[in-house]
């Protein structure tokens, strides 16, 4: 039988170029809106949000209380369904996935840091950090969790339960947990909201150092303008819509 060879329609360089472009965008939000039905009619929380985030960059989402920051973060991380529009995270269209599939996406690509730490109270610091790796079914998880806790300066508190740690220590555990499985993107929701200034500064430094080292994309939702100023780009939300989306340098100038 004669072998018919398919004609090569694209040059290799083109493909590489395409991939590069795709790889460069880790998060792509398109026409996103979120509404709720309430007894007083329909409540719009987010309205027609569009933006994309380059891989490895840092971004702050700022805005007053009730502007929809946290809802936006929840949607971007696949914690909730959008009413309309789409979220593409690391090339995966989240709205096409069911709850379980989105959970796996989070486990594979996403890290979280919360305002109130959200450590599992029945697990020790070490076990809390191990969970994301264990969920993936990876081996040698203890050593890697241990290593990260060493990095955040808690190498001597491995077997303490969250209730035995201070707020700053708990947030450090939570940072270790967020980085341990080397996520592509990390969402931080007011990471210093529950901490004093001195601890906050230490936590921010730790967060950016680790981020720099791992090359993770970092999305921070915050009130704290100092913290926002440390990122490369700031998106301002008001009343559920984007009112500004600028590079930090531009804003500073």
């Amino acid at each position, binding site marked *: 039988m004669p072998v018919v060879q398919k004609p090569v329609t694209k040059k290799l360089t083109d493909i590489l170029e395409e991939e590069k472009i795709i790889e460069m965008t880790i998060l792509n939000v398109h026409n996103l809106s979120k509404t709720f039905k309430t007894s007083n009619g329909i409540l719009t929380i987010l309205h027609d949000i569009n933006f994309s985030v380059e891989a490895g960059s840092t971004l702050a989402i700022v805005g007053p209380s009730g502007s929809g920051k946290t809802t936006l973060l929840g949607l971007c991380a696949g914690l*909730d369904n959008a009413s309309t529009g789409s979220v593409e995270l690391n090339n995966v269209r989240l709205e096409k996935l069911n709850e379980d599939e989105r959970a796996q996406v*989070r486990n594979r690509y996403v890290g979280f840091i919360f305002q109130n730490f959200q450590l599992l109270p029945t697990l020790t610091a070490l*076990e809390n950090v191990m969970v994301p790796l264990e969920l993936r079914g990876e081996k040698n998880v203890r050593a890697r969790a241990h290593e990260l806790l060493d990095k955040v300066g808690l190498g001597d508190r491995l077997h303490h339960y969250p209730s035995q740690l201070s707020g700053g220590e708990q947030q450090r555990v939570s940072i270790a947990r967020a980085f341990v499985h080397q996520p592509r993107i990390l969402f931080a929701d007011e990471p210093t909201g529950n901490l004093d200034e001195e601890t906050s500064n230490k936590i921010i430094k730790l967060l950016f150092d680790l981020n720099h080292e791992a090359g993770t994309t970092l999305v921070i939702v915050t009130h704290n303008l100092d913290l926002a100023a440390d990122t490369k780009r700031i998106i301002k939300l008001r009343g559920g819509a984007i009112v500004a989306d600028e590079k930090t340098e531009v804003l500073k100038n």
Partner: protein
Amino acid sequence: MDRERFVYKKKLRLRWLMKMAWRDTRRNFSRLALFISSIILGIAALVAIFSVGDNVQRDIDEQAKTLTGADLIIQSNKQVSDSIRPLLDSLGQKRSKECSFASMVYFKKNNGTRLVQVCALEGDYPYYGDLETTPVSAEKEFRKNQQALVDRTLMLQYNAHVGDSIQIGELTFQIAGILNKEPGRTNFSTAVAPPVYIPYRYLDATGLLKKGSRFSYRYYYKFDSTVDVEKVLAPIKSKLEKAELRYETVASNKKDTGRTFEDLTKFLTLIGFIALLLGCIGVASSIHVYIKEKFNSIAVLKCLGANGSQAFLIYLIEVTGIGLLGAVIGAASGIAVQQILPAVFKDFLPIELSTTVSWISVGKGLILGMLISLLFGLLPLISIRKISPLNIFRIPVEPASKIIDPLKWMIYVIIFIFIATFIKAQVGYWNTAISYTVGIFVAFLVLTLAAWLLRWLVHRFFPATWSYLWRQGFANLYRPNNQTLILVVTIGLGTALIGVLYFIQSILVNRITLSSSGDQPNMVLFDIQPKQQNEVADLTKQFHLPILQEVPIVTVRIEEVNGKNEEQVKHDTAAKISPYIFQSEFRVTYRDTLTSSEELTEGKLGKPVRSPNDVIYVSLEEGNANWMHVKIGDTIVFNVQGMLVRTVLGSLRKVDWQRIQTNFRIIFPTGVLEDAPQFHVLITRIPSAEVSAKFQQAVVRQFPNISIIDLGLVLSVLNDILGKIGFVIRFIAAFSMITGLIVLIASVLISKYQRIQETVLLRTLGASRKQILSITAIEYFFLGALAAATGILLSLLGSWLLAKFTFNALFTIPWVAVIIIFISLSFLTVIIGLINSRSILNKAPLEVLRKEV
């Protein structure tokens, strides 16, 4: 960065799930202990009862031959006819014969008299097992001489010794030995008339073989071990039945004994099941609260990438594991309890009960424990699947759908089927099982409704002008995180189950004591021959004793009903009449008036019969007429000791059987049975034990054939028996009561965890100890009182239904008990609630928050 396509792979990672379940368990062990403790006792009770039931079955199998004492027993209530005698004499390799009857025994040494069961024995019976005697040789010796074996309790009662003399009828016997045990008899079966064995050849000489008295003849056979008794029996069965002889083999006896005990174990299993049901409530409520508090952790896990099934399975594994642990502890306790039970049961059983651990029962207990934890834990657990990871943010989450999860409905249905199936396995009828199960579910619904109503009422009519403490206490009943529903349902259902148990027990106990109290007759003389009638009456009067009743008794059988005899009824498939009525013996009397315990419900009492052409109108007791399927105007032909008497059913009566006096199912008019072979019964009331002893001696000396039942003695024996039965019931019921208490403590205790933050906050704001305790007391008092009141109402309804339809007894509300149960449960709730809050009050607020939350 390498390019990677996202492909969803569903993996459960069971090992990790188990690890997570363990991690969660180790930090919450004290709280999960509540859940464990609610099932331990139920499982313990059931494992113990199952084990005893199992052992009884096995012991009966092993001891079956000694239970019967022979390979075959043929029994008759009258002298066997000459036609069948050759057959009886041809069976077996060894034969024994026994004639037994009730008679008075007279202890010559101290003039004691007592009704006994005289067993005149010929041959070497028992062939298996022994008549256990002291001295051992007496078992053989008494057969050779004019000697007797006397029951141990009788010897003790009359302080008699081996070698003393007793008089039975007109003959004196020397006591050869004390009879400790005989095949197939229990302490209960011999309590009223203890046995005395004499050699058969002296039977005639006692002069007690009078016509009209009740004799029982038993023929014992031993076959060679190679002979199949059933095969021998098969061809002669119909012959024996025709001659009105009953037969009993090792196999049939085994079945009968097993059946009797099966009923008892089934009843006890049901009581034990109540403990388990209460435990189920404990399981469901503790898991419910536990999972509620885990919402946040579950949301975090989902955020980190755990899927719904994984989150659900972590807690399912945890609950099942803890359930298994509870079941193991329960089963172990059950084995311990089982060691005690034989002592409790020994008076009911004709066998030596072993205490071998029945692994099947242990297995059943373990499975039951796990199943219950699973089923009742599943209800709160399935909500885990629906917990959104968004719960960790304080942002609006779409309100949960109001429609109940279909899975939840499915679990309710499975629970219903589970309960119904378990009850069916115990009582044997689907109808009963389903009505009991429906009852439990209705109780559950009523309590839910009551709780809902309480919340609504408090909310609607909130006492806004009352002091802060009252308002806060009241508000706790309906505010978010309120305990109203769960506590009202748990405490209420517990109260209802315990209430039913208690009320039914008192109905049964009342029924017995009713008949033994007051100015009731307490001595019955029977087997009085017609010619002795006047002399006995005179003797009674000499002792200044009242003749309360003096009735003739004639033994009759039924020959035909509406022209059909036994054969015709058997072959007539349309006939509703039971063929059994032709096989029964009836003891009837004749009179023209009703007694105080009778009431005419239909027709008229028959007129005295003056000429042979008069129609003889008989009167039947209602229930009996129903059983015989006869109505007024039907004809019944009686066989009166060989003579056929044609009668017409003239009236129906209602008889109060609970009165102590002679009551009859069938009454003839006067003028018919006067000349038939008969004996008389005389009923009197004896003022004291001393008069009783003297009167009995006088009667026995003058009329050795007359038997006397001292009802005082019978009642004390009966009391003893009932006390023992009551003890067994209470023993098992105690498991339910204690479980109820544990569940109450558990429900109040888990509510503590929900109130902690608030209490600490109030404390931080400066609330005094007294204020916090008052708020707690007010809240728990209302919860406890409402739950107890609803539970009591339900239990009264349940008891009334049971009394009316199951026990046929009158149910009057035991007000004192109701009030005591109400007050004690309300206060118990308050006290447990207060003890709970104390642990919070005695520590610094921050310390509490760190430790408990």
